[in-house]
């Protein structure tokens, strides 16, 4: 029984960590910093790298839809951006055999920036007009890039502590 609970906890840990980040962004960080809708991509990026089999596409779609419901975006828009980023990640993942943290950071920078631009383009398309881009756009990217190593460190810590790399 305990082993079953442990097993389910382990396989659902990537999803739980992403849900935790959604809550963190909604109730805590938004009062001080605006990390934006794509904040949870930090965790998606990490788990796609280490445990992609525990983060299937339908989970990413559901997470995107939850984000859309919370932030009142058209349902499916964040999910579509996440899917685009997952697709680009997949392409990138085949290029590097043993990426260093610096390489990963650079690829995260590239993916996140593409995600932000894609979100702006999609929002403009939905509103049928070019939405203004202000300094907050750059500020949001920088804030996420600053937080990425911290987030990465903690996720990596859990990944090792919970032995998630061991075969289940």
């Amino acid at each position, binding site marked *: 029984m305990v082993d079953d609970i442990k097993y389910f906890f382990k396989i659902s840990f990537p999803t739980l960590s992403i849900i935790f980040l959604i809550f963190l962004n*909604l109730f805590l960080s938004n009062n001080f910093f605006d990390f934006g809708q794509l904040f949870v991509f930090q965790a998606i990026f990490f788990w796609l790298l280490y445990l992609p089999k525990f983060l299937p596409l339908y989970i990413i779609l559901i997470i995107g839809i939850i984000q859309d419901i919370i932030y009142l975006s*058209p349902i499916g828009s964040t999910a579509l951006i996440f899917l685009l980023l*997952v697709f680009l990640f997949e392409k990138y993942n085949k290029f590097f*055999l043993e990426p260093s*943290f610096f390489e990963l950071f650079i690829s995260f920078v590239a993916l996140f920036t593409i995600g932000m631009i894609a979100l*702006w383009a999609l929002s403009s398309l939905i509103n049928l007009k070019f939405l203004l881009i202000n300094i907050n756009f750059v500020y949001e990217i920088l804030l996420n890039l600053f937080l990425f190593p911290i987030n990465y460190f903690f996720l*990596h810590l859990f990944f090792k502590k919970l032995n998630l790399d061991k075969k289940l």
Partner: protein
Amino acid sequence: MQIGGMTSFLNLKAKNKKTLFSSYSFVFFVILSITLITLDTKNILINVSVIRSKIVNAIFLTKDIFLSNLPNLDKLKFSFTSKEELILENKYLKEKIKQSNLFKLKSEKLEIENNILKKELSLLPPVLENYILVKVTADTQTQYNKTIIINAGKNMDIKKGDAALTSKGLIGSIIEVYDKYSRVLLISDINSKIPVRVGKNNKKAIISGNNTSKLDLLYLKENVSFENEDLVYTSGDGGYFATGIPIGVLKKEKNTIYIDPLNDLSQIQYINIFVNQFKDF
């Protein structure tokens, strides 16, 4: 290898080089997302507000359960408060009650006097103005959507279209009502359009948000001139907002005109919901 240490942290190895997903499933989910976006933007999705309501309620319920199970440090601190402090606090509170009762009596007296004078002047009976003070539960503002969630919903008889304001002026209107929460569309959102009057000459216009801290002034007649720092307030046209709620001041900068809202929309904590007298309009 250290667990979570610097060695393993810096020397990363990608574990999985296989294809993460089949191209069929990827295409399926992309098509599904695009279909959902189309259905939602065209308002074809049936019961989407019910689904939104259920999910938002579930999220806030989870938060409440989590917070209620956290150790209450205030209570712990309170248990160490000395008896003398409690006596002093009690004395102070009694004084406060006396004072507030006095103010209440005074205000009741003034209200009665006011009503008598209005009757003497044969004015119309006063319109019932019903305000509900609510707290901002979650700030859900992003680059492209400017909304906040407040801690009152159907349980407090809040309805779609009710005005949300502070003591300074209007901040937005209710667009979604859930069981215990509601969502306010801020005046800075691109979808917010409010009929207004500008300045002492009562010039009509429409203000629109543009997802920034400044508001646009639309549908102006030709050859209309405005003064810098003119006050902008609701006109009441359309029946959604009461007349005369201040919104912002007009600013002129290098041949451009914009409205500077009276409220800092990123720092709102408490707001009043004006239960709209025209809600069944």
